[in-house]
């Protein structure tokens, strides 16, 4: 899945080479977990502070690449996705629903990290945390967030990415951590 941003949608700091691995990883992880293809329904830039839609997991990245990635699902979709991943119907209140969204974020970011590491970026991925507040932080004052809406067979999954890189990547593969 290859996406191109129009010049108008392109942020000054965030480059598509940083974003594409996350899009590919989300596409692959969702398609495998749901056993159904996904498509990008919408793509937009956000300058406002992050506003949570439902069950959200947030992962911070520091190093050559800095910023944060949020995976966000409305409550009904979160239950459907978690139930599909778990192979059994889960109630909305179940802790496993939140756990699943965190693990989903973990897998998407981990797979993207693998790809970015091959490009020589040195950075650290921090463990996912459940994002519970209504509003979230921007990655930094000068970084816009790219919001990608993935349309799946059981609802929309939002990937909110605010990343920038601080220097030219080192051709030597880098150490990074993740699940």
């Amino acid at each position: 899945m290859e996406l191109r941003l129009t010049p108008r949608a392109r942020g000054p700091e965030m480059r598509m080479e940083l974003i594409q691995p996350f899009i590919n990883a989300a596409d692959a992880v969702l398609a495998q977990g749901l056993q159904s293809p996904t498509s990008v329904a919408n793509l937009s830039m956000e300058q406002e502070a992050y506003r949570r839609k439902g069950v959200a997991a947030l992962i911070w990245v520091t190093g050559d690449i800095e910023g944060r990635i949020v995976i966000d699902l409305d409550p009904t979709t979160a239950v459907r996705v978690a139930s599909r991943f778990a192979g059994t119907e889960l109630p909305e209140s179940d802790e496993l629903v939140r756990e699943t969204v965190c693990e989903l974020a973990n897998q998407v970011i981990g797979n993207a990290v693998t790809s970015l590491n091959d490009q020589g970026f040195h950075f650290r991925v921090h463990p996912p945390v459940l994002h519970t507040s209504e509003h979230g932080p921007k990655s930094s004052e000068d970084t816009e967030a790219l919001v990608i809406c993935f349309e799946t067979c059981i609802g929309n999954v939002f990937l909110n990415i605010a990343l920038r890189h601080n220097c030219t990547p080192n051709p030597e593969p880098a150490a990074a951590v993740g699940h």
Partner: protein
Amino acid sequence: MEQFVAVKRSKDGQPVRYLVVDDSVFARKNLARMIETFGGQVAGEAGDGMTAISEYERLKPDIVLMDITMPQMEGIEAAEKIVQQHPEARIVMVSSVGYQENIVAALQRGARHFVQKPVKPEVLYEVIKYVMGEDGTAAHAAGAGA
């Protein structure tokens, strides 16, 4: 979920016993479901590297499925400590971060194999058969046959 030909222990025909180590409850449950389809048995679970070491001592499982990034002690360090004490331990790392250095580090420190998340059951099944080697046999069995 697809059923596989059960992998049993060659020495006694009993199900292969697994220790599943991951800080994500969801990931542990997911692996446990796959293990069932392989005709295996989850002997125990752990959510961090320290607990994995003590659980290995207590349970002596046939195979450990070990995540990498976990609280208290990470998976590669836990694998190394287990293998130092039990060179026969069969540890398979299961992680979403599959870049080369991670894999090499895990293998150099005692892991037998590496599987990237999201885990495909058919991939894990082949890895289990490979890691068990002559100590495991794939044979049709009641409730676990293909």
